[in-house]
């Protein structure tokens, strides 16, 4: 630091006299890192001027400078270096890699350095994203930053990803962050309408090619995000795309190919056909026995039932004895053209494939002093393991920055992308969900052909309701095509060196075309055939103009920002549907006998004023404040304007004189912030009392009230305070952040349940409050740092408590996580925001195999039919009371990332983990029931663990034929410890040495292999422990193991 001060002083002195005897000369040199590898693309600027250059691929640079001037060397991922030009014409520089405190990253309406920033932001760089080879940049964020939870509701390729930052801040409005690409807020909804039909979500953010991303900043506290006002409560994700660097054109080619041969884990592996039929025998047997039948009658009834149900598929069932646990003799019938004796159809793998994925990217970038450009084209194709699931995308981008004269800079980012998604309904659906079918519906005795005639079987399989989708798959199709054009034009005018005006105008046109076809033979074709075409066009225009002013008065530094922004979103929708299709070859509405159409539009607008003031004293003490005023069409005229602000400060302790001699600590900093931001209502029109015209009758228009509205509907307000300690030890060999946050989300829109006698089930009010607080830790370091071997690691952890603090009239709200009502939760004051609510299961009575529930009578803990462990208990779930049975939030979760580089070889491991908390397995009730379902398959664990006289230690209840519904209740029976550790990605790469690349006239050549989900260690054993944001398991397609191999070269 002393050196630096001296440097500045020297510089000032020299500046005063430089005009006198300044003599310009050519300075050149080589920039390398501490492993002596050339650093390409480093920026070299002469301090105090706008003159600069960039190093080439060999790290060489050349610049005109005069003695006494200071050269500032910067490059992403390295600490800044300042060197004063002396007599020598050669200045070689070794840049130190590390947690560069002065590295510039993107923040709200500007840039900042770690050193100066007073907010909480995590930065994820391109190279971290590349390690995981995901088609979606959101998926690549998993485990990368503390407090950032990345989850998926389905393993289907192309499906939506959900991100929650710092807990759950809303009940009814969005809990997803705001996404901003190159300074422009973008839509992050599921695009198109197909999810209303087959529940397959199409994530519009997938249109962004991850290879185009330079960095991602995740803004977490008020200081970081409040400048985004009414949409920032759940955090903000800022995405910056790549820009060209001054130098020769650089062409990069990247190609990868991969496959997904299997699921990431076991998923409710079904028991064998024989075991399943034996299981059903027990069910039917018990049905008769418990109705008063004798053993002979029960055996007779069970066999009759089996023969009735399964005889039509060509089998005859018999037993040797008449006991409840007989093993069936299964013989083939001989009265058909096919005899199935000794054979069962293997459905298990029928609908799944070894899915492939491939990606090809090409990019060209470069620049001159006046022009920088980056241009890319990419094609990626991801197949899902189910044949009806695939995603492909092409994406082209041109980013150009043109300097005009000395004052004007013109930027243009153009991105065009097109994607096609095919998906299927993976909710709890007997017909359409292939995964569910093979796990719980398609017995091995069902065949795709009729044994009697040999013809294809097209009906439903008995009471399991499954279909022969081997046939029906050829009778339907779906696709959702998204075509997006996004243009961002930026004009930056340097009015004065310290006064800059910038205008960004963005226009984004997203067209989604959905196609859904069922032939007249398909079970959804209603015997006539049906085709639906939908077009959803979202047009989004954003304009923002900002003025920034820098002022330094001695050691006092000021930066001020003022701006105005408008945003206009309009979506128009058209649907046309044709029924009664004449020929199977033509899947178009125009051929249909009967047609039906609809078209309308919706939208919203927003207008904002924003400002920020930053101050620092000698880069030691920092203060900042921001204020934004938002007006939104989503709110009524009286409530639509709101103010959002933040104040924050930081203290760079390491700059204090008393720290100068503390060698072990090279950086130490405290920052704190407080502020308010918000969340808008989800609906565009929630405040309006509406009458909808969607109820035609007798071909005449019809209308009806559609809601009970509150004209005073307002935002949800989010008050966040944040304190953090940042440190770097031993020359940044060890660095980290400890951060505490407290987030009070108030005025939460609550869908207050109301008496249905009013005509509606609920009305929206700004009532509820939620508190999220927690600690986030980040610790990183270089364990080994030698010329040849570098081993670095970082770990992040977030400890979050998320609680409901206030509800409308204190009344509890019972809610469910999705269309399938997989789990039941309760919002209750003082309890978790993800509190599972249901009966408390007490296991199996070892003496008789009956399930036991604790009664949990709030008035009398002993109430019940008998006592168990000193508490009232019962066999009858109807007598038990629902209570909070667990919460989904883990004690801690996060990621662990480590990177080893030895010469050209690099190995990266990216773990995610979760410790504590529960997950709710809603499939349990389907595949491990107690005899409720009379024609469903069970999992192996259900067969293995059921209580029988022979297996009195079985952990699952006895199988009954009396429609035992204990299993279908929401209860802790289906709750499992969610603790797991997963190797999310492993990346092995090899960079060929320059001796090889030079011969090939390449500048770099790299081959790599990436494995995803290759290792999982979990307390929960039945299926994949990586759950959705609500911590439930259902019939969604599981995650796969993926192996991808690729090559990247540039010249």
């Amino acid at each position, binding site marked *: 630091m002393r050196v630096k001060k001296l440097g500045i002083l020297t510089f000032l002195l020299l500046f005063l006299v430089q005009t006198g005897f300044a003599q310009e000369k050519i300075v050149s040199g080589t920039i390398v890192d501490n492993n002596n590898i050339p650093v390409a693309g480093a920026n070299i600027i002469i301090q105090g001027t706008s003159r600069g250059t960039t190093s080439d691929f060999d790290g060489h640079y050349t610049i005109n400078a005069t003695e006494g001037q200071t050269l500032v060397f910067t490059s992403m991922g390295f600490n800044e270096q300042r060197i004063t030009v002396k007599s020598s014409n050669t200045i070689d520089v070794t840049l130190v890699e590390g947690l560069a405190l002065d590295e510039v990253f993107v923040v709200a309406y500007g840039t900042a350095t770690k050193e100066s920033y007073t907010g909480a932001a995590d930065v994820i760089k391109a190279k971290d994203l590349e390690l995981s080879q995901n088609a979606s940049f959101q998926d690549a964020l998993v485990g990368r930053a503390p407090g950032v939870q990345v989850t998926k509701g389905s393993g289907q390729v192309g499906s939506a990803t959900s991100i929650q930052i710092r807990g759950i801040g809303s009940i009814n409005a969005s809990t997803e962050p705001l996404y901003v690409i190159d300074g422009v807020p973008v839509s992050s909804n599921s695009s198109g309408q197909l999810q209303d039909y087959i529940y397959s979500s199409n994530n519009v953010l997938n249109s962004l090619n991850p290879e185009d991303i330079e960095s991602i900043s995740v803004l977490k506290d008020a200081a970081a995000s409040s400048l985004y006002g009414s949409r920032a409560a759940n955090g903000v994700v800022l995405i910056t795309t790549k820009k060209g660097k001054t130098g020769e054109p650089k062409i990069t080619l990247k190609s990868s190919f991969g496959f997904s041969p299997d699921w990431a884990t076991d998923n409710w592996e079904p028991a064998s056909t024989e075991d399943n039929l034996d299981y059903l025998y027990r069910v039917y047997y018990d049905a008769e026995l418990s109705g008063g039948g004798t053993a002979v009658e029960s055996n007779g009834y069970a066999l009759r039932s089996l023969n009735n149900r399964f005889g039509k598929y060509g089998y005859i069932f018999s037993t040797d004895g008449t006991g409840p646990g007989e093993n069936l003799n299964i013989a083939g019938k001989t009265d058909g053209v096919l005899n199935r004796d000794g054979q069962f159809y293997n459905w298990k793998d029928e609908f799944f494939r070894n899915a492939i994925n491939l990606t090809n990217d090409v990019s060209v970038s470069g620049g001159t002093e006046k022009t920088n450009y980056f241009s890319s084209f990419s094609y990626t194709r991801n197949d899902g393991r189910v044949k009806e699931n695939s995603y492909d995308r092409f994406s082209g981008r041109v980013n150009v920055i043109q300097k005009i004269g000395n004052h004007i800079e013109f930027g243009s980012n153009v991105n065009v992308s097109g994607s096609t998604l095919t998906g299927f309904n993976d909710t709890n659906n007997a017909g359409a969900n292939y995964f569910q079918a093979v796990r719980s519906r398609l017995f091995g005795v069902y065949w795709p052909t009729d044994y009697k005639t040999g013809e294809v079987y097209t009906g439903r399989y008995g009471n399991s309701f499954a279909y022969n989708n081997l046939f029906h798959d050829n009778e339907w199709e779906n696709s959702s095509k998204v075509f997006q054009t996004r243009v961002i034009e930026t004009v930056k005018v340097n009015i004065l060196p310290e006064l800059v005006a910038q*205008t960004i105008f963005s226009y984004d046109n997203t067209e989604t075309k959905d196609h859904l076809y069922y032939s007249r033979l398909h079970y959804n074709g209603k015997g006539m055939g049906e085709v639906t075409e939908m077009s959803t066009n979202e047009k989004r225009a954003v304009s923002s103009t900002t003025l920034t002013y820098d002022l330094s008065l001695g050691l006092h530094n000021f930066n001020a920002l003022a701006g105005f922004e408008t945003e206009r979103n309009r979506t128009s929708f058209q649907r046309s549907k044709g029924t009664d299709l004449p020929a199977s070859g033509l899947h178009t509405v125009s051929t249909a006998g009967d047609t039906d159409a609809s078209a309308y539009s919706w939208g919203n607008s927003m207008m904002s004023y924003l400002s920020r003031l930053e101050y620092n004293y000698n880069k030691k003490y920092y203060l900042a404040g921001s204020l934004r005023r938002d007006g939104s069409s989503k709110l009524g005229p009286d409530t639509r304007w709101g103010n959002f602000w933040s104040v924050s400060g930081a203290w760079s302790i390491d700059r204090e004189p008393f720290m100068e001699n503390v060698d072990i600590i090279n950086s130490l900093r405290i920052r704190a912030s407080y502020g308010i931001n918000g969340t808008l209502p989800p609906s565009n029109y929630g405040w309006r009392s509406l009458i909808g*015209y969607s109820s*035609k009758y007798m071909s005449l228009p*019809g209308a*009806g009230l559609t809601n009970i509205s509150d004209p005073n509907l307002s935002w949800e307000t989010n008050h966040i305070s944040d304190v953090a300690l940042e440190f770097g030890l031993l020359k940044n060999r060890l660095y980290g952040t400890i951060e505490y946050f407290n987030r009070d989300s108030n005025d939460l829109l609550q869908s207050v*349940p109301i008496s*249905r006698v009013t*005509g*509606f089930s609920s009305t929206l009010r700004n009532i509820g409050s939620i508190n999220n607080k927690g600690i986030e830790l980040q610790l990183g370091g270089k364990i080994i740092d030698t010329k040849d071997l570098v081993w670095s690691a970082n770990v992040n952890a977030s400890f979050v408590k998320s609680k409901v603090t206030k509800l409308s009239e204190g009344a509890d709200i019972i809610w469910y996580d999705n269309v399938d009502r997989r789990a039941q939760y309760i919002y209750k004051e003082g309890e978790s925001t993800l509190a599972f609510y249901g009966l408390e299961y007490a296991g199996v009575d070892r003496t008789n195999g009956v399930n036991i529930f604790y009664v949990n009578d709030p008035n009398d803990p002993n109430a019940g039919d008998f006592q168990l462990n000193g508490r009232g208990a019962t066999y009858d779930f109807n007598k038990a009371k629902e209570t909070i049975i667990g919460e989904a939030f883990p004690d801690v979760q996060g990621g662990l990332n480590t990177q080893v580089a030895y010469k050209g070889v690099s190995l990266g491991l990216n773990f995610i983990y979760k410790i504590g908390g529960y997950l709710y397995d809603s499939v349990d009730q389907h595949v491990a029931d107690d005899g409720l*379902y009379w024609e469903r398959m069970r999992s192996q664990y259900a067969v293995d663990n059921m209580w029988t006289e022979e297996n009195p230690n079985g952990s699952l209840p006895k199988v009954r034929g009396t429609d035992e519904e204990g299993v279908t209740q929401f209860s802790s029976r289906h709750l499992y410890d969610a603790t797991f550790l997963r190797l999310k990605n492993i990346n092995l790469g090899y960079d060929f040495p320059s001796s090889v690349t030079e011969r090939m006239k390449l500048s770099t050549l790299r081959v790599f292999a990436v494995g995803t989900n290759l290792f999982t260690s979990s307390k929960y054993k039945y299926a994949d422990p990586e759950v959705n944001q609500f911590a439930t398991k259902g019939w969604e397609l599981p995650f796969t193991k993926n192996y991808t191999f690729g090559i990247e070269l540039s010249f």
Partner: protein
Amino acid sequence: MSFGLVSCDDDFLDVPPTNSGESSTAVESVADAQVVLNGIMRGLTDITYYGRNFMVYAEAKGGEVTTRTLGRGLSDMYTFNSTPTSNNFESFWNDMYNRILQTNYLIESIENVTGEGNYDNVKGQALTVRALLYFDLVRIYGKPYTYDKTSYGIPNVLTPIDALSNPLRASVEENYQQIIIDLKAAEELLPKAKSDGYVNYYANKALQARVYLTMANYPEALAAAEEVINTGPYQLYSNSAWVGSWASQFGSESIFELGIIPNENDHGNGSLSIYFRKQYYGSSSANGQYFASDYYLDKLEQDAEDVRWGIMGDDREFASEDIHMGASYKYSGDLALSGDGKSTATAVNIKVIRLSEMYLIAAEAAFHSDKELAATYLNKIRQRSPNLAPATAGTISIDMILDEKSKELFTEGQRYFDMLRLGKPITFNDDFNDLPITARTKTIDVTFDKIVLPIPKNEINANPPLGAQQNPGY
């Protein structure tokens, strides 16, 4: 970049929807009111009401149908396995109160309208429909009027109410009083001409006949039914025309018939057509859900030439079984699934009130005062079994009328309510396929608590005072 700057911010920030209007200004003319009425009529055809569930409810619980397996859609109506939290068909409660709100909104809007125009017809229809909704709803949630009219009926709301109100149940008797008030108020507003798909004077009167019969007010029931029979523009189907009537719309017997149109309110694989059809016939989604019980078929078998056989078909799942003619094709046009003249077989109009029912009401109502007259009315329908001896004052009985009503109005939403109102035991054909039924006995009657559905737990959660008014037995 300047569009926000040049326009006034209130304009810029006012973005109305394009498929909805403001409710406060939506009814300003008779045509507007008619549009809301159309929406109300459409609401009656929803799958949760006349479009399916109500019709199935009255049949599944009435003993004239049975089912082969449990666990399929709506089989819990048959098993009575309802609880406040599950299998309770709460959509009756939820959706019918929404329809009531729409009628309340329309009636109130008409009262507030300032401009010119004759709203009588629309208002009369809205009042009649409101009465119909209350009548059906109180029969689902309240004990029969004839059994215990002082017990809890359903909340009686006649205007749009505040979102946070906690309405409580009125008595069954109070509900019926309001139903009669609405019907009487509507009567004088309605035109007498036929009005396909809508309510006219005679639909109102016919509903009055039904309501009075349910209240055991036989003189009023008889008077209303006779007025429809004698002065209405309706005629009974001849025996030769009876079967064909199911394949046509708005026939000569239709007093109130709801229009079902493809791409509008055609319920397709969820329709009544599918629910009463033979398994997999015409659609792999046809589960063979409900078919006639042996008891119903025994009645019909009294006469092999009964014209009503014409709409019944074989319901066997497997060819190896005995022929069983329990599938009903009233909602499919005919046995060939021809529909009633539209592009799909499932878009078949719902006949809510037919003239035949008026004769049967007249017969039953007259039975208590004039058996000869009763026999005359009954025989008009009974002659559809040409080989059965006509009823006489000496042979006629309530059971004979009831049997005839069952034969004639099978799957038309009547049976269960007739049995309840008359306190008759209902026996279920559970043995047809050895169904394990635990929630009820094979035979039930009006003393069984679960003859009414529970008030849904979701309603009680939102409206806690109603918890103290739950139906007994739940």
